[in-house]
């Protein structure tokens, strides 16, 4: 994992120049580590598994995909169930976190 507590101060520095802040990245990281990485991995999903990679993908793409899963305009039994319990903030945090990772 690239973003650790140790680098929180660095992230706070970044916050002034971009719209995200350390807290939301941290929240995104926590969610990703706790839930999404189970299938998508942090940097890469398992080579043996049918899950698409998320690290380094476009943040807006990820957000849109998650919202579509949430309102079921994009169908996937599993992602519909998972996205169903995500708030707008969750989606934005986790998308930003994954988008910033190098795969």
């Amino acid at each position, binding site marked *: 994992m690239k973003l650790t507590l140790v680098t929180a101060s660095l992230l706070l520095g970044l916050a002034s120049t971009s719209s995200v802040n350390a807290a939301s990245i941290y929240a995104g990281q926590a969610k990703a580590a706790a*839930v999404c990485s189970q299938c998508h991995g942090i940097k890469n999903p398992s080579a*043996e598994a049918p899950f698409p990679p998320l690290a380094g993908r476009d943040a807006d793409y990820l957000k849109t995909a998650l919202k579509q899963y949430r309102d079921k305009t994009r169908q996937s039994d599993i992602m519909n*169930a998972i996205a169903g319990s995500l708030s707008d903030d969750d989606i934005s945090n986790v998308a930003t976190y994954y988008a910033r990772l190098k795969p």
Partner: protein
Amino acid sequence: MNILKTPLRKSILTALAALVLPFGVQAAADNAKDMHQLFEDNCASCHGSDHGGFLAPALNSETLKGRSPTALRSLIMTGSFDTLMPPFYGRLTDDQIRGLVSHLQTTPKLANPSWTIDDIKKSIKVYVSDESTLPDKPTYAIDSMDDVIGVAARGKYGRGSGSKAVFINSTTHKQIGEIPTGTAAHIIDYNPANPRWAYIKTDTAEIFKVDLYSMQAVRSVKTGYNGPGLGVSRDGKYIMAGSFVPHNAVILDADTLEPLKTFELEGIDPDGKMVSSDSGMVIGTPFDDIFAIALENAGQVWVVDLKEGFPVTKITDVGRHLHDAFLSHGGRKLMIASYDDSIVAAIDLKERKIIKKLEAGCVPHVGGGSAVEVDGRTLGFGTNFGDCDKTVVSVWDLDKMEVVKQIPVAGGTESPAAHANAPYVAVDIISKDRRARTVQLIDKKSLEVVKTLDVGGHAYFPEYSADGKFLYVSAGYSGDEVVVYDSTSLQKVASVSMESPAGIFSHGRVRYMTRGLSPDEATAPANAPRLRPVGEMKGAK
């Protein structure tokens, strides 16, 4: 900081449990044989071929009695968050998962399946038949073979293309080779007499003999169904392997991997009952031409002499549920952990008797153990799962065999790393929450925790490079990288990607015997001829 996790996880699990309901109504009519094969091919490497548990819980009619099939199906589909249990969504169909659940809930723990000396013999595979064709020095740049570090990469599913042993040059932190192992690599051990040979043991009890110079497997053998026990004799001529399933051990020729003798593991436990037993640690020692093997359930340590007939001396009543161990004093003293008595027993391998039983926190798991010399004393460090209020790392004076201190740490621990040239003893915190991301560092002199590193993933199995300059840690589970720190500044200096890394094994161990001792410890033991030593059991759970 872990506030987010629990509620979200709960709501997601509830959502997923609802999800499995609408699927096909007819239960799969697959017969038990197919289901057993499905279990063998996907689950047994972690859960045990006899359904009796291995590094994951036992799955049988007894342990799963009364559990909701729907909840079990959803767990198998998504995996169990923050553990090694992977998601089988997309790998198995809903019908297969359904069939597995009903199979598991109706199958009792199986009788100890047999795997005989003939099965072992027949399982030998030869990948390089003429070893004289191998290069006579490493085919990559490296100053000393001591600098090789091996990492057991499990692969997310405990099998497949992510399962391999990865070898790294610990001065440059660059990968120098990898050996695919089919199922999760668990233990890596090195030949004390010839630096070119390494041995890798997998969760499914295969052993690969590896040529480190050309970075390829030359032979393999299957010694059982499950079990990590592996040791190499000080002369490099023999390997001993011990299994959980079935309950046996075998001595192999280290060169050809031909089995020479098998041992049925059974004996009278400390409560006076005759039991059949899992194998715990297997260890060779620079002290003598012997192997020591722990019989977990029988609470015995057997010392096997490497001579005609391989005679056994049995040391009984060592402790309840023995597991792993480490050596001290030129390899004459063996410190072995007993989970259920929460002690570490010190055994004199010369007299072949127990010296003393020392307090060791609760549910001690010493991993590879560590020993360091501080102000003229040899101090041993012992980790423990700490499944109670007391989460401490035990420090013992290994000369006097007494407890020096129980150092409070943040949670349960599983493996300590030390090095003669590094200021800190590193321990991995394994408690099931955010703490699992961390490693704590204990100052060798003050015996206090002085720093906590947030490594990521499930951080475990710290290991120093042979020169002591770098600390390697696996960010396991979904962390998928090995992180390297400068041992003194504790700054992160490198990262090596791989799927679900676990145990880390420095080739330097061959010279210092137990991590933390002087690099020449194993070459000049007090009353033994000059020679080099051996490996240990690490990473078993």
